[in-house]
């Protein structure tokens, strides 16, 4: 009896002590584009483990960006393991306020590591940097581009290879492109810019093109009520209300692609993340261009960055660095860009044979890269959820004619000032 007990005990002890101490990384990530991408991530994690014995990676697919943030924070609070996560680039301030992340500079100490931190496009680093330290490593990043239907351009006598380069050109072309039936009902609009889901993001493009960003780099002040910003919203509103080249009211983000591929609008502004899907469904030749300029070109960047959490051991941080470096090599950035339509995050990725070949057959894929030099950070402040909703509501109120652009934006600015005062 006693020997049996001893045997059991020995068995239990053996089971409790692992053969070798693996460093385990739990890694939350969102997927915001359709497609079986979770399998791709799982496959990448397995490949990494093969090359790095001693590190185990558990990727956890957490839904969309909002889910991923909520889930990762909940896991941290509940004491469940979470070392790294891909989260919205604009969650930075929220994560700082919750005091859950550490800068990559803390672990990236070798010369090679430091060079790696500088390998990405500067405009993609804006949302990840706070007070000179890098908290977010770009992973799946997008910008807004203009899609145009070449057949529609040809039909109305426009050069199908020449997209609008300025606001004026866009208005004029769009006016020509509007098609009505015998009864005078519009069967094709000139241009559509979505105004649900990511309203503030689209608006940032207008504002940037008109010369202004919407917040300061410290994330504690918004610039909604500047005359240039108000004029930008006025232009967006006018596309529907004055020039009649866009439907009035808000335009649904989710169904816009379908409207474009069905030929119901000749141009649309949408995320580069949509490129692959449009390519697969459009039955007509289409082009992708940089967004038109008013005072300058411009688009915000968007998407997800790698963050490292504070509650991590030294070994885990080292392993996390190794994993994220591995995930962002030029080859993998290129492959991920091709699989998703996202921007490849670093210039040398565009020099890889794989992406070069792809771009030769499908030149639309590099437009987003070319636009990066005009790009700016996505709207992100302290209290970011509230501030974003304030702006969304203001834009929608203006687009639906409930308020004038000036009144809507001034009210939003006043409210944002109230929210952000404690952070100054």
């Amino acid at each position, binding site marked *: 009896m006693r020997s049996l007990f001893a045997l059991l005990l020995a068995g239990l002890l053996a089971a409790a002590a692992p053969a070798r101490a693996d460093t385990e990384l739990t890694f939350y990530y969102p997927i915001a584009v359709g497609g079986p991408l979770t399998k791709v991530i799982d496959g990448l994690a397995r490949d990494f483990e093969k090359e790095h014995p001693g590190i185990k990676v558990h990727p956890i697919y957490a839904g969309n960006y*909002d889910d991923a943030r*909520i889930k990762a924070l909940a896991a941290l609070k509940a004491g469940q393991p979470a070392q790294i996560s891909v989260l919205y680039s604009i969650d930075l301030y*929220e994560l700082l*306020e*919750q*005091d*859950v992340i550490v800068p990559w500079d803390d672990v990236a100490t070798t010369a090679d590591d430091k060079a790696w931190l500088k390998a990405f496009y500067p405009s993609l680093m804006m949302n990840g940097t706070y007070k000179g330290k890098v908290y977010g490593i770009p992973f799946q990043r997008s910008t807004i581009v203009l899609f145009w239907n070449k057949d529609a351009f040809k039909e109305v006598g426009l050069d199908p290879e020449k997209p609008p380069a300025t606001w004026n050109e866009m208005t004029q072309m769009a006016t020509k492109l509007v098609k009505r039936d015998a*009864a*005078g*009902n*519009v*069967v094709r609009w000139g241009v559509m810019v979505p*105004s*649900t*889901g990511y*309203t503030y993001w689209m608006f940032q493009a207008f504002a940037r093109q008109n010369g202004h960003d919407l917040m300061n780099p410290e994330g504690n002040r918004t610039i909604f009520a500047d005359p240039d910003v108000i004029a930008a919203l006025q232009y967006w509103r006018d596309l529907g209300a004055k020039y009649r080249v866009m*439907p*009035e*009211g*808000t*335009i*649904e983000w*989710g*169904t816009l692609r*379908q*409207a474009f591929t*069905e030929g*119901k609008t000749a141009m649309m502004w949408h995320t580069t993340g949509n490129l692959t899907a449009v390519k697969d469904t459009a039955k007509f030749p289409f082009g992708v261009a940089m967004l038109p300029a008013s005072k300058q070109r411009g688009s915000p960047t968007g998407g997800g960055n790698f963050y490292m959490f504070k509650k991590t051991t030294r070994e885990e941080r080292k392993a996390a660095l190794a994993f994220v470096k591995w995930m962002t090599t030029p080859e993998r950035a290129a492959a991920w860009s091709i699989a998703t339509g996202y921007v490849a995050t670093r210039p040398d990725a565009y020099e890889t044979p794989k992406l070069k070949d792809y771009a030769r057959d499908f030149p639309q894929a590099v437009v987003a890269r070319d636009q990066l030099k005009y790009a700016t950070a996505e709207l992100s402040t302290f*209290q970011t*959820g*509230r501030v974003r*909703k304030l702006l*969304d*509501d*203001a834009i*929608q*109120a203006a*687009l*639906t004619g*409930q308020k004038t652009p000036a009144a809507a934006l001034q009210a939003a600015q006043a409210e944002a000032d109230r929210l952000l005062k404690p952070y100054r």
Partner: protein
Amino acid sequence: MKHVYGWLLLTPAAILLVGFTHYPAAATLVDSFFSTGTAIRPSRFIGFGNYALLAEDPIFWKVLGNNLWFALGTIPTSIALAILMAVWVNDRLPARALVRMAYFTPTVLPMIAVANIWLFFYTPQIGLVDQFRALFGAPSHNWLGDPGTVLACLMVMVIWKEAGFFMIFYLAALQSLPPELEEAAKIEGASRWHFFRRVMFPLLMPTTLFVLVNATINSFKLVDHLFILTKGGPDNASSLLLYYIYQVAFSFFDTAYASTLTVVLLALLAGLALVQFHLVEKRVHYR
């Protein structure tokens, strides 16, 4: 002994009920008097501070108003349709089983799935509603993007979802009416409408009250479709109180303010409870 047994039998359910209904309801009230804590700033007692914010929060008043319109817009219509359906299905209608099934089907479908499909209905130009209207030469309309129509569109969907469910209760009530009633009315030569108004409708009153209360509770509780269709937009034109609570709690992380909003919702529901209690008392509901 009966005391012991009674409580013993009740205990497992009681623990869960207290734990997930009564305790959280009380905790919500307590939380509404504190500020939301963050890692940098801990939570502290602020008295009615959250309520003062609430009184000045235009979005709160907007969603409360929406909830009211939503209830007014959906409940009477669903009930009228439910009665109509029940009367039809109770008749000797050709293919009656099929018709009855059609009416009831929305009840067994999840709101989230239904919303996906209705999104395609309402899409401008290529959606079903606009395609149908185009047959008559009507211009396309931006149904969900126009603050003037968005709430009505959601109401139509909810009426579709609920009418068949309410029909069931009327059907049960109709089947318990004595058939001689209608025979008698026929002999007297009363018109169908007259019979319905003077005889049937009053007899259905208890069912109507029951459905009314349920429908009102539902109108505060049912927000699933907003996640797919409008996210409360444009500019909160279609947002409802519970959806706003969700946004404040889980996207602004302001749990204290969310608790304050929840207190309002609880107070509204408690008010309803009182109304219901009165109605129920009157018709001696409890056996």
